[in-house]
């Protein structure tokens, strides 16, 4: 089997694994799978120069993302690896990247030309090592986020959470606080369909429509991000917007758990374009009768504007929404974003 068909096989298997799983794998698993896939692709394709590497990475990521529109993580990881490769080349040369305003007076063409023609052979080993580091960072991110719970949750807090059943990070966050001896109450908002499932024993389950009546008793709201953006806005599981608005009404802080690999470097201008829909919830006989006549929209995510979020709990630290832009610079390169 030549390397091209092999790569196609790998990609297909990856997409199938994304589509087949229901409920969806946790995002850290997907992030890791993406890193592994891209690593394999890089070392099968064996690009000669930096430029080849970046072009092929961008192409593969675009294709993968087109096949599975809701997985922004695929793009994030692709661009992160691209930045890692850039960093390796620069480290070899011993220079650092110009900051945006500094770049105004640099003759960029020359440096980019050098960067593009950089030989991949020299940095292959280092790139492999830094990709490994990326994997460890992804794996440890849940733990890192959970460990910050003791700084955010205190005794006698009443914490309202959403999508506890689907988010392992949220679960870890709350259990870590409980283990550390925090005596807080957890109000968890559950969908009707989830209610039958075994909810963790530390939470009081309520329905989404009860959120308004429970909000005055609440002292903190914790949500999980599906993605967050450099302007400080984020996508949260559907229902989150309503909870955040209520929290704002009662001046209650909203914390959003957001591991770094969910930081999408692009501005989200049209939330509708990103909306993915969950399965139709009309009962079968009803939908059979009304086929084509009734549209039942069941969006998977809500958009939260930055003013509704108090803090993002990332794996390195807690950041306010206006600092997300700075975090973006740690993980992505401006040129990669512009080229993508």
């Amino acid at each position, binding site marked *: 089997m030549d390397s091209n068909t092999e790569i196609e096989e790998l990609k297909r298997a990856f997409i199938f694994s994304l589509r087949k799983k229901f409920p969806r794998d946790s995002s850290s698993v997907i992030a890791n799978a993406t890193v592994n896939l891209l690593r394999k692709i890089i070392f099968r394709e064996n690009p000669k120069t930096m430029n080849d590497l970046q072009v092929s990475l961008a192409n593969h990521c675009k294709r993968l993302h087109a096949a599975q529109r809701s997985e922004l993580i695929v793009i994030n990881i692709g661009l992160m690896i691209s930045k890692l490769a850039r960093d390796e080349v620069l480290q070899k040369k011993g220079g650092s990247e110009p900051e*945006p*305003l500094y*770049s*105004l007076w640099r003759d*960029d063409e020359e440096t980019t030309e050098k960067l593009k023609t950089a030989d991949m052979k020299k940095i292959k080993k280092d790139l492999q090592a830094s990709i490994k580091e990326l994997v460890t960072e992804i794996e440890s991110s849940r733990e890192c986020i959970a460990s910050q719970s003791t700084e955010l949750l205190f005794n006698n807090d009443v914490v309202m959470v959403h999508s506890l059943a689907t988010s392992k990070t949220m679960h870890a966050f709350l259990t870590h606080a409980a283990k550390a001896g925090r005596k807080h109450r957890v109000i968890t908002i559950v969908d009707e369909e989830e209610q039958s499932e075994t909810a963790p024993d530390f939470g009081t389950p309520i329905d989404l429509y009860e959120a308004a009546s429970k909000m005055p008793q609440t002292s903190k709201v914790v949500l999980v991000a599906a993605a967050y953006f450099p302007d*400080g806005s984020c996508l949260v599981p559907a229902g989150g917007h309503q909870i955040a608005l209520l929290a704002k009404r009662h001046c209650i802080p909203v914390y959003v758990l957001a591991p770094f690999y969910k930081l999408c470097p*692009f501005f989200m201008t049209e939330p509708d374009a990103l909306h993915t829909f969950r399965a139709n919830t009309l009962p079968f006989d009803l939908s059979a009768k009304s086929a084509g006549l009734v549209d039942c929209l069941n969006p998977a995510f809500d958009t939260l504007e*930055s003013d509704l979020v108090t803090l993002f709990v990332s794996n390195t630290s807690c950041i306010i929404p*206006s600092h997300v832009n700075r975090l973006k610079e740690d993980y992505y390169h401006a040129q990669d974003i*512009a080229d993508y």
Partner: protein
Amino acid sequence: MVQESIIASFRAKLENDRSKSTSLATVETLLEVLDRSRATTVAEFQNELNQVVAALEKTDFSSTSIRSAADLFTRFTSLAPAALLDQEDFSQVLDLYRQRARSFIKNASGSRAKISHFARLFFNHHMNILTHSYSKVVLETILDAHRSGFNLHVWVTESQPDASGKLMLEELKREGVPTTLVLDSCVGYVMERINAVLVGAEGVMETGGIINKIGTVNVCVIAKSRNVPVYVCAEAIKFVREFPLSQADIPQEFKYRTSVIEKNNLELEHPDVDYTAPEFLTLIITDVGAMKPEAVGEELIKMYI
């Protein structure tokens, strides 16, 4: 005198090429100074520059734009590798500066196209856009989007006292963009149908707020109250190290043209510009990328510290 000829060439640049921004003309003029300079020390050269900048600010062009461009220019002509500065021959340092200034001009002259590229993301079909006064960057951004097939409707405020909005209207109409002129006092009335506000800026302040044609703050406050996004299109050379806290805190030379300051009684004059605080702005779209207003301060700190 040398200075007079330099000021004359500055004026000529702006008058011959209507599409040239004041900032870019400033940088080009300073490059001329650099080219002619026979300075033998850094201090001497800085002195030459300062004199020219002071003379440029005496003209009636926007002091905000001149200040920001001149500051940036002075900044990068004061950074040189120590090894180079230690050498006796100062002409080598000047050569480095010249080379930097040329790439600076090259990068800066392409900035409107870059802004238009970054702004493209924020356009939609059948969008109603409100803009205030005349701005070359906004004009190019809108025209660019129009040419690539977006059917936009642009609402332009008249922008008195100099009615610069009419100029904007004419330019947009010439290119076939559906455009409506509205009174300055009509902004509250039209805002309910507007999808986005697009304004330019004379200068972007360290707070992330902007100084722009008088009336901008009215437009932005109304937009904010109706949750309409306000996008500012501005080149990165317009970032200024000023930190205005209120309208009264805007430096006087930004508020009035030099000729007005010198001749007229300021108590009777209307200022040309106002300050829009960052909380009324959604995003600042620059040639180094789109950013939240909060990020401007960070960029400036990185640059000047």
